């Protein structure tokens, strides 16, 4: 097997790749899998990793991230931190920029409101509640995007009790998650697939379980 610092452009002829013949698959497998495992096992997760330690790798990874085959290859190893890293740095950069813009827009003049902001007894909109909500949303979106689902960015809406709603309303489905200000409380979820009541989802679950439940539901209905 080649060492990573011996990679050159000639080894990585993406243009000539044909999935049926898989001429590139073995090369990619040789190159990427050991790296992924190394990142994961050694928990080396910072930007300098690719930029310095494996300089040439960055260029090719960027290029391969446009290939559907890349996703198939990397997916089995790409869970958790590495998945998020790849999504943010290479795979869905445009989506991430759009998501960041939207979240900035939604939070503007909302996050940080004190108790009684509506003069009717409402609860404060805290940065902690916002962070819990957006962290969960990012996990869900990254997971779905990574797995090939072209899911739109939902609205994130405050409630008078200090919780936030994550609200998807599309032609195909509607899904509402109410994330409590205190994440020790349960998350309320209601979802419907248009015209197919058998896919109704109505649960209250722990914050930690929400990503898995939502991603599985989305995979069923989309």
């Amino acid at each position: 097997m080649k060492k990573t610092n011996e990679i050159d452009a000639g080894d990585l002829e993406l243009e000539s790749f044909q999935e049926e013949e898989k001429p590139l698959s073995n090369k990619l497998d040789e190159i990427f899998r050991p790296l992924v495992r190394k990142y994961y096992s050694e928990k080396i997760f910072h930007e300098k990793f690719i930029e310095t330690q494996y300089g040439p790798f960055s260029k090719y990874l960027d290029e391969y991230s446009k290939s559907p085959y890349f996703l198939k290859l990397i997916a089995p190893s790409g869970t958790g931190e590495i998945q998020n890293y790849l999504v943010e740095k290479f795979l869905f950069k445009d989506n991430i920029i759009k998501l960041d813009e939207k979240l900035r827009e939604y939070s503007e003049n909302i996050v940080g409101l004190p108790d009684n902001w509506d003069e009717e007894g409402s609860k404060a909109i805290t940065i902690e509640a916002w962070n819990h909500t957006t962290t969960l949303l990012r996990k869900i979106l990254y997971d779905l995007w990574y797995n090939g689902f072209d899911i739109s960015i939902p609205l994130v809406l405050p409630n008078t009790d200090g919780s936030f709603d994550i609200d998807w309303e599309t032609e195909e489905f509607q899904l509402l998650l109410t994330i409590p200000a205190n994440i020790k409380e349960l998350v309320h979820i209601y979802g419907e697939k248009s015209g197919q009541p058998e896919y109704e989802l109505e649960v209250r679950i722990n914050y930690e379980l929400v990503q898995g439940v939502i991603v599985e539901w989305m995979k069923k209905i989309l």
Partner: protein
Amino acid sequence: MDEEDPLSWDIEPYENFLDSHFFYRAVHKYLWKNWPDLNTIYPNFFSLDQAISGLSVDWSKYVTPEFTLNSRPAPDLTTNGIVELNAGKIKRSIEDKSLPLTIRHDPIKKPPINRAHTILEGIGKLNKAKVKMKLSKIAQWAPKMMPIKE
């Protein structure tokens, strides 16, 4: 509002909510000011009112949307919009079991008096998200009560 003694007001039965009636609810600007489309009614407009374990609304039998707006601490459309929920649509959703609610007339007899005050009950820990979403589909801005973005 009529001038009669509030203490004489009866709690009216469910049958008195006619299909043509509406329920009005104020929605504060922080619940809509950052969203892209003001024509859309969002689920967070129907957050549970903590104090009464239900959703507080005003019944059109006794008041107009203007009354609901004017009863807010900041009675102007740059701070509050007023949504209306058609009673007939709510009743049909209750009857077909898609909306697990009851409607209870609850006139407030002490100042600030409000004969129109009504509570949509049954919003609990199990169904909060579902009720909010369903109500957002039924509601619309009351005439001339769409809020104004500054």
